[in-house]
């Protein structure tokens, strides 16, 4: 099969998935949450899990980008813009997921109009807003020099600009924005963890480790996505790309080990403590009906196999293997998110066990409905389209960046300063 036919098959598959997914989204908007399988006992399901997944991806990607724009790690310079683009794209996908998860999506503005300062969730909205602004401004300043020569529209509305290199002033703006962005991004996802951590009604979530777990696994997923995209979709020349991918994969793997370690601490503390309310959700996690989401998706597929590949003697050099390992980690974090959201709610006993929910047929046995799956698919395809168009239209892989300090730049900055 030639590359061209393969591309056509992939494209037509994507189109089909998009049509199905968007139809499911329309159906969900028309009929409401009756299409979803979550109940009053288990109110948060697949959509909410994917929401925290994408918000985590976004925050993780942003924090990776600060390696370039704050800490000046030159090695990652070529993928810095991609990391920022990822951050923006994943944030939008995450917000779409939470939007369709709302019973009244059209009222989302009430979180701002009727802002309630006692709610972690309300603060979270503020963090999201600040984060979006920072992301957009930072990306605009970074991409502007390369974007203007490309776009006739921008040339017409923007004052002319000869250089395609950032001025020192612009560089410092980017740096300052990225510095402000660090606590904001930590607030965005650490705060998302906080939404769960403050819920004293669910002992599984009610631990100070949760925001930390969220942040670490966010770094894992963000790093994994960047590694995967760089390995397979980057136009950076081969040898340099190999360097970046190897380095990113090692970094991601290290954070992943930290992630597993923190999870291990929590599991040991809970099982050793042996408080029924607390151990019950962990029993469900480790040996419940969805044991495979933990053992197969999160541990085996999402951690062990990729770690073996990344540190393996024969595979740690090969781009394809590393990219594949990154993809596995990236998918494994979906399991991490599901494991955070679902078992805690399945063990909602409220002192009475299922007897307290005699009026519901299957109060805690949750499996996402077809509409939940298909609309998730629809949103994911939107993400793929976004990536495709973004890569085509935006200068995401320009050689120009923060680290550039050649003679030419000095001349140009002189001109623009005048």
């Amino acid at each position, binding site marked *: 099969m030639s590359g061209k036919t393969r591309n056509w098959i992939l494209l037509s598959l994507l189109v089909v998935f998009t049509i199905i997914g968007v139809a499911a989204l329309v159906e969900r908007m028309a009929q*409401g*949450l*009756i299409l*979803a399988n979550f*109940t*009053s*006992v288990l*109110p*948060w399901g697949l959509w909410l899990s994917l929401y925290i997944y994408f918000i985590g991806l976004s925050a993780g990607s942003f924090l990776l980008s600060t390696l370039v724009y704050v800490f000046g790690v030159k090695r990652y310079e070529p993928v810095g813009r991609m990391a920022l683009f990822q951050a923006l794209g994943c944030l939008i996908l995450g917000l779409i997921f*939470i939007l369709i*998860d*709302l*019973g*009244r*999506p059209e*009222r*989302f503005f*009430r*979180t701002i*109009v*009727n*802002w*309630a300062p*006692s*709610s*972690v*969730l*309300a603060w*979270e*909205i503020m963090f999201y807003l600040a984060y979006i602004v920072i992301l957009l401004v930072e990306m605009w300043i970074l991409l502007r020099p390369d974007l203007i020569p490309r776009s006739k529209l921008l040339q017409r509305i923007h004052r002319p600009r000869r250089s395609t290199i950032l001025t020192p002033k612009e560089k410092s703006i980017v740096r300052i924005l990225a510095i402000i962005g660090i606590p904001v991004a930590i607030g965005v996802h650490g705060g998302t963890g906080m*939404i769960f951590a*403050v*819920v*004293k*009604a*669910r002992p599984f979530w009610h631990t100070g480790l949760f925001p930390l777990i969220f942040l670490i696994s966010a770094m894992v997923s963000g790093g994994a996505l960047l590694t995967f995209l760089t390995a397979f979709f980057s136009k950076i020349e081969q040898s340099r790309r190999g360097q970046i991918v190897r380095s990113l994969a090692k970094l991601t793997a290290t954070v992943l080990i930290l992630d597993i370690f923190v999870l291990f601490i929590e599991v040991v503390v809970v099982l050793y403590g042996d408080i029924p309310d607390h151990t019950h959700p962990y029993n469900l996690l480790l040996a419940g009906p969805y044991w495979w989401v933990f053992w197969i998706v999160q541990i085996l597929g999402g951690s062990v196999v990729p770690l073996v590949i990344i540190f393996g003697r024969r595979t740690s050099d090969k781009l394809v293997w590393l990219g594949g390992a990154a993809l596995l980690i990236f998918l494994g974090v979906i399991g991490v998110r599901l494991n955070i959201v679902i078992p805690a*709610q399945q063990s*909602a006993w*409220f*002192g*009475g*066990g299922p*007897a*307290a*929910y*005699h*009026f*519901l*047929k299957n109060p805690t046995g949750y499996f996402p409905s077809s509409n939940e799956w298909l609309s998730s698919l629809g949103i994911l395809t939107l993400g793929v389209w976004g990536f495709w168009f973004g890569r085509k239209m935006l200068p995401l892989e320009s050689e120009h960046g923060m680290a550039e300090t050649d003679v030419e730049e000095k001349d140009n900055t002189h001109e623009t300063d005048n």
Partner: protein
Amino acid sequence: MSKSNGNEISRRDFLKGGVLGGTAGIMSAVTGGPAKAQSSISGKKLAMVIDLRRCVGCGACMIACKNENNVQENVAWASRISRTVGRFPYPKYEYMPTLCNHCEKAPCVKGCPTGAMHKADGDITMHSPGKCIGCRYCITNCPYGVIHFNEEGKHRFWSNDKPLIENGTASAREVTQKARGRVLPYYNPARELSNPGTGIRRKGIVEKCTFCDHRLIKGELPYCVEACPTDARIFGDLNDPNSEVNQILSKFNSRRLKEDLGTEPKVFYVREFNQGSYEKTKGMV
């Protein structure tokens, strides 16, 4: 003036009469009593005591609640936990009516991002349907599982295809069609009194027990209290040292659900559903 209020006053008269004499009793009946009952419930700390010894487990509270508040199937604002515990030959049946605890420090209120869930007059935990975005954070925040999400349109019953009696009656959908869609579902306009727009409950938002605040502001008891055939539910103001709830709470050990979470629930349980008895014994080794 409702019948229940009359009772309340006469009981208070009786008590006060015993201490202060007839004049004071009449005074309180003329000034404090009826006026308070008719005016708003602000300043009160309304609470419920459920006497499990009196409770016979009939479920009238659940039915009354559904009737009064248009609550559909698959949702129960007033619910119960019932279970059989213990080992043969001495099993024990337990029954515990449950409802929103209207916690003083309600986690649902603290967590609500729009302030839709709020503490209202009488220290009742109330929900403004117009502000709710349906994020269901209150449901996850509630340690008692008494907040419900209404994902169905109003009154699903009327679009039901299943006949009430197989091969016997028409289905609800057929009835609706025959009436050209004009069948109005049963709905209690009284609920509009306290919180406009809640007469028919809305789709896509959460909902919960309101202590029947539309009745409270008229000086009537919550309907589950009214309907309880054994007077197992006792309603009153914790701020009033003479209220019935305070009198009962002073006599018995009371317990509340998950007190260790510090939510300060305002539904108190006294005595045992199945008290039983046993012969005097010292046991044996």
